[in-house]
């Protein structure tokens, strides 16, 4: 081989590599996007509020406004759904041929499916993005004294939960709506006061606490809240049953009235300001906001442009 051919070979190889890289970035038509979620969506009625963030996301995905590029081809309430590309979509046919949604997959199964490449999108990823969920302690009924509920709220070390347990993700809060949504969340801020909490708690009875045991993050936060409460003289025992005194719940934030519905409270009368509506929900400490958190989605590297449905494409 002539030495003069070497630059030519190197140049051609470089061009080939650049071409391959470009081809890898270019959207690919076809393929199926597979989504696994834990919630069992039974109704697509937008009037029915959904507390579970994944359930909310899937309902949104299946709503005509969002799923325009796709048509619902199969709908098995609580089990599965299939969307197929809408060839007549005014904005142009989407890249994907179809989207398959599997419901009722618990987090362990989702993690396994994701690691085996059986699912492209699951709820097992890092919490990133906008703060669209509120983690809150929700009391059922009035059988726990309001003083004790307030004591529990004052005892929680939200800053440490955010800094250490969540590694700076999310936002510590005493408000239901995040600052970006309401603009007045800071008005509900109340510093931690263990001495006052101890005073209010007095000889508190044992509280039972329930939470999503599959979600490791929620479990760690619940355990920390129990330790914080213990410092204020409140004993909390985690239980697996649903009918506990208090439950730690991740609520998807849509609007205050939706939140009121989720908390079994009547909607605010017309004309009530958003601040007053939120204040009335928080009065009595039936719900104690702890953190604002982003959604948690694990997205396979083969998926591009998620969650922009019209432009999502997957590697072949």
């Amino acid at each position: 081989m002539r030495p003069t051919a070497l630059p030519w070979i190197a140049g051609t190889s470089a061009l080939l590599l650049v071409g391959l890289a470009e081809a890898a970035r270019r959207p690919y038509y076809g393929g199926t996007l597979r989504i696994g979620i834990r919630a069992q969506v039974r109704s697509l009625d937008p009037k029915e509020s959904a507390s579970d963030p994944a359930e909310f996301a899937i309902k949104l995905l299946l709503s005509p406004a969002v799923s325009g590029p796709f048509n619902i081809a199969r709908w098995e309430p609580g089990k599965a759904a299939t969307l197929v590309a809408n060839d007549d979509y005014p904005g142009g046919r989407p890249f994907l041929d179809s989207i398959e949604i599997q419901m009722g997959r618990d987090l362990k199964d989702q993690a396994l499916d994701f690691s085996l490449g059986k699912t492209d999108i699951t709820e097992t990823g890092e919490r990133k993005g906008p703060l669209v969920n509120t983690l809150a302690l929700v009391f059922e009924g009035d059988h726990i004294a309001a003083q004790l509920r307030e004591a529990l709220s004052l005892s929680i070390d939200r800053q440490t939960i955010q800094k250490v347990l969540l590694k700076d993700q999310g936002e510590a809060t005493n408000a239901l709506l995040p600052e970006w949504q309401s603009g007045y969340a800071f008005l509900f801020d109340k510093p931690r006061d263990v001495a006052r909490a101890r005073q209010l708690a007095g000889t508190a009875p044992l509280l039972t606490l329930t939470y999503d045991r599959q979600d490791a993050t929620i479990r760690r936060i619940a355990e920390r809240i129990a330790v914080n409460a213990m410092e204020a003289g409140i004993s909390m025992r985690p239980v697996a049953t649903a009918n506990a005194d208090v439950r730690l719940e991740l609520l998807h934030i849509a609007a205050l009235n939706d939140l009121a519905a989720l908390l079994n409270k009547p909607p605010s009368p017309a004309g009530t300001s958003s601040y007053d509506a939120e204040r009335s929900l928080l009065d009595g400490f039936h719900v104690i906001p702890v953190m604002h958190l982003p959604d948690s989605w694990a997205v396979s590297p083969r998926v591009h442009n998620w969650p922009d449905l019209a432009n999502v494409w997957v590697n072949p």
Partner: protein
Amino acid sequence: MTFRTKLLLISSFSVAGAVALVTGAVLFSARRSFERIDAQRREGLLDQLRRELDAQGAEIGRAVDRAAASATVQQLLAGTADYDRAQAEAESQGLDFLDVVQTDLTIVSSAHWPARFGYKNDWPLAPEDWTAPDAFLARIPLPEGSAIALIAARPAAGGSRRNSSSLSDRLPACMRCYGFRLEK
């Protein structure tokens, strides 16, 4: 009373007395020997328990030494490891419980109660217990009650330094549950 009757009564009493005396003596000596055997057995068991505790204590001491010198504990003390890393270290050293604490007894990481980081360690120990070379028994608080545990405390030295204070003045305290939980 005839002479024959008197003779019968005297001999009967003599025989009964002799039998009672012999029975009493046999009972007494049997009890003594049972008590002696029992004491020997108890001493043997206690010796065995002490030897077992010493062996377990030495083993725990070695495990705690290894944990104190481990990279995980150094990272925890340097503030570069997650708050729940003590769990993995306790598992790898075969310790049921492990607390990594600072000199002011603030928990850096707890294997058996991860959520307690940042709180003061509240084991009912005397100051000299923290520097005791041997393992000892103590009651340890747990999320659901408490447990009797054989524990050892060791200082951790070395590691990377993130601030000016010496890390050698910080103590990891490790312990091993000896087997029975006292209360729920």
